[in-house]
């Protein structure tokens, strides 16, 4: 006797994106091992329409399996049950009817992921600032006609920007747009949100939201100048990061970074580019220059470990 022992969706927890390509693999076993290589299986959807003919490709141990093959997922949401059919066959002069097995899966809307980045760490009251928003679809859909809608802390729409046609550098399918926004007029730390607005509000995609924070601070009073040098060579270091929370900057080719800050107490870090962090606590009352002598991390050698 034959038994269709399994049909599984490869690499999935039995949930598939609506209309997406799904990868399947079928295994057929028999009571006594039989090489069924080349025999054809039918895959039917729950409307009893054949969606795939696929041959058994490999006989192994006591089973036969297909290669991993692709079929189109249904275009209606919810639970679907498909049939896998081994056609009628003759065994020892006995005619055997077709063998049928079923498997089920859930068709769900495409998941979308939103990202928000390049928000300045500090913004002046009422200032215009730029940031980026990106969206990716779990099935890699292109965001035709989609836009990013940005709402401020009060739910007031601040921007509606079309998602671009280009994939963001380094990503597989993240479509993005640059937004120009206006910061609140009052000092504060605000939670803003962005979501995707789709034409026709299709049911194919789930809605999702990304939140980001907008920090509005008073006008700076003083100029903090950091000069970063290598402690051993005294050579200026370019590209190290300066942080006087929440202010951030990077040193230029002369090892210098300038940050305008309100007067007050700051913990200053200078680090990066393979240098150990330089840390100092300072009260800024007026323009201030700090020389940061950084120690290079030369790695752990035997000598370091053992002295």
């Amino acid at each position: 006797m034959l038994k269709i022992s399994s049909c599984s969706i490869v690499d999935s927890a039995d949930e598939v994106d609506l209309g997406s390509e799904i990868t399947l693999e079928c295994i057929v076993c028999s009571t006594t091992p039989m090489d069924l290589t080349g025999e054809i299986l039918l895959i039917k959807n729950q409307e009893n329409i054949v969606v795939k003919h696929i041959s058994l490709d490999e006989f192994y141990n006591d089973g036969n399996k297909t290669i991993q093959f692709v079929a189109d997922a249904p275009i209606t949401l919810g639970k679907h049950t498909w049939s896998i059919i081994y056609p009628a066959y003759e065994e020892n002069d006995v005619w055997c009817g077709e063998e049928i097995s079923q498997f089920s899966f859930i068709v769900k809307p495409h998941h979308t992921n939103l990202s928000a980045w390049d928000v300045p760490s500090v913004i002046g009251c009422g200032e215009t600032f730029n940031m980026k928003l990106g969206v990716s679809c779990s099935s890699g859909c292109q965001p035709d006609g989609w836009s990013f809608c940005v709402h401020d802390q009060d739910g007031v729409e601040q921007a509606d920007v079309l998602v671009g046609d280009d994939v963001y550098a380094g990503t597989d399918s993240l479509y993005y747009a640059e937004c120009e926004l206006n910061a609140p007029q009052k000092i504060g730390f605000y939670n803003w949100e962005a979501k995707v607005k789709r034409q026709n509000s299709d049911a194919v995609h789930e809605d999702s939201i990304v939140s980001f924070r907008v920090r509005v601070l008073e006008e700076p009073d003083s100029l903090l100048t950091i000069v970063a040098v290598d402690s051993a060579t005294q050579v200026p270091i370019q590209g190290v990061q300066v942080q006087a929370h929440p202010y951030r900057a990077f040193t230029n080719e002369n090892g210098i970074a300038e940050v305008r800050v309100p007067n007050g107490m700051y913990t200053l870090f200078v680090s990066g580019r393979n240098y150990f962090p330089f840390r100092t606590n300072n009260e800024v009352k007026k323009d201030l220059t700090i020389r940061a002598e950084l120690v290079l991390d030369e790695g752990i050698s035997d000598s370091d470990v053992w002295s």
Partner: protein
Amino acid sequence: MTKKNDDTRDEAKAHDDKTLSRRDFVKTSAVAGLGATSLLESDNTHAQSSPSNENIQWDYEVDVVIAGGGCAGLTAAIRARDLGASVMVVDQNYDLGGRMLHSGSFTSLGGGDPVQVRDINGESDTEGFITVPSAEDPKELEDTIDLLFTDITDWSVVDPKAQSPYRYNDRELVRAWAENCPATRQFLIDNYVRFARISGTHGGGGLSRARGSRCFFMLGEKTDIKAGTITPEDAGVADYERTSAFAPVQMMDASRLVGPGAVMNGAALSRPLEYSAREKGVQFMLHRHFDEVIRENPFSGRILGVSAHYSPRQHPDNGELMQSYWQNGNVDERRQTIHIRARRSVILASGGHAGNPEVRSMFYPAMREPAFPTSGVALQGPHGQDASALIAGLKVGANLAGMQQNISYPTTFHIAPRLGTRDAYTTMMPGHPTFGFRGSAGINVGSVGFEEFIAVNQVGKRFFNEVRLPARPSPSRYPGADGGSPGRGLDHKPLDWRNCRKEWVREMYNYDHGLDAALALNEGSEAPDYYSGPIWAIFDQDAVERTGWEVRYPYIADNGYSFKADSIEELAQKIAKGHEFQRVPLKYLTETVETWNRYVDAGKDPEFEREVDAPMNQIVKPPFYALSIMVIWHDSYGGLRVNGRQQVLDMRGQVIPGLYAGGEAVGGFNKHGLGKGHVHGYIAGTHAVEDVSA
């Protein structure tokens, strides 16, 4: 979710015995000086064995059989051969050298050894390669065997956890070691090894004098062991992204300790010894895992020989049987299991147990986690450091020594700063035949690089202050302004109680428990194993731009140890799907990153106080990255108990006749690295020849 394979994995494209043509003959390469009776085919060889082993069919017979071709094994082999014995070395790998080949070659001996004397006098080496002055003050180099012995039995020297590396050393064993250091240094020099200026001392080698030296070649037009030269290509210095079959790890600049044009590392130690051994007629049976020592009776009588099984290593790219760098002296034997009779003795030098998670769990149960291999796993293969000597010794009644000395050493286990590779200890690049097993070289972010990411466990939660993760236990030192060690003054006072007073121990203390937190139970730890699972560095494109990390091949590859995604959620999915030891989903990763970003906004990390140590940066700019962070168990300090002749002792303190051991296979001497193994090999090779079959 289906639980993934928990076993120590087999090498990719594991060998199928049936696919190889089986050979029923023995093929030997031409070897100078090989005696006609030193190798016998199986049909002609039947040892005179005791009643319990009378049925053994000996396939080979030699005077001395050595399990393992690393620092102890190769040294023992040459020494025994010099003394007239026929010698066969059995090694599970396809090439010789063991850990020595990928080491830094730092060889700490002393006791007034010839290199110490040379440097005291400010002399060059005999070939005149060394053109720089001595690196240590002559007073730091004035040494005696008695001082060395005192140093390595000094009860007063402790580490930051108040444990002593020296207190528990076996006195007979280390006395013999100290006495043989000068002779071993000369022996190595006589076998084409060239030592640079002494600089410092290797761990466990005693603190009061400088005793460590690295091995070098001079860059030249051809690689010539006798001439002491190596091509830039073989040295791995011609192209920063390539290493060679000759030297799996890029050689380091040795200009400070030798002079311009010199390079150093373990290749300058291992290859000369291998060359000399082959030249002198030592036989090598590679691809052969040593399994058992055969004794007349299970717990009594002489050792008769060994059994060993075929352990072929096949090329990761083309599937062909891998070939050693040199072949002269190789015995091409492909039968599944063979028996080799040792007329005089067997020397166990097959390494320690750092690659055997079950054995190392004896010392740290959480390190039974198979996700973390030992160092150099690509080079050594799946059987490297698998406790074979320990297991075989126990089966014939051997005792153990120094098992507690595994704990708390700076290199025993630690978190590596090289991310995105399973083999996170070495710098091997494409060009070496085993690079394919590694797949990626990893990105060495250094200790400072840990401020650029968050580290999460197998469920996606942070577990420690990332900046502190790579911190290691400090080494043992004498008290003093700079910490007492060679090159930092001679005001040390051995055997002084003040060396271990609590104020000094507190001063040495280093907040180094990130490794313990990494191995801690978490929500993904399931009975009965409670594995802690892999750990991941999570960062974004901003971090790549800040640091300049090269997130490309050969540093990373699509091998399950690095991932890139458009979103954190997708990153978690990719890790769960693509990493061989990721047994559970990283269900908290998205939440963890969101929480972290809020901490950065606030300038405070209430969970681990990162803001105290380093700046914090958000993880928001796509794409997002995950690189594996590896815990490495590097070496072993516990093992078989041996006496001063390297003879293995049983549970009653009696010598097991005909059985010797050295290097990481033995315990009782908490000394790191090569100096221990070479001297053990020298002693074992000397006495193994004297041992005569009953």
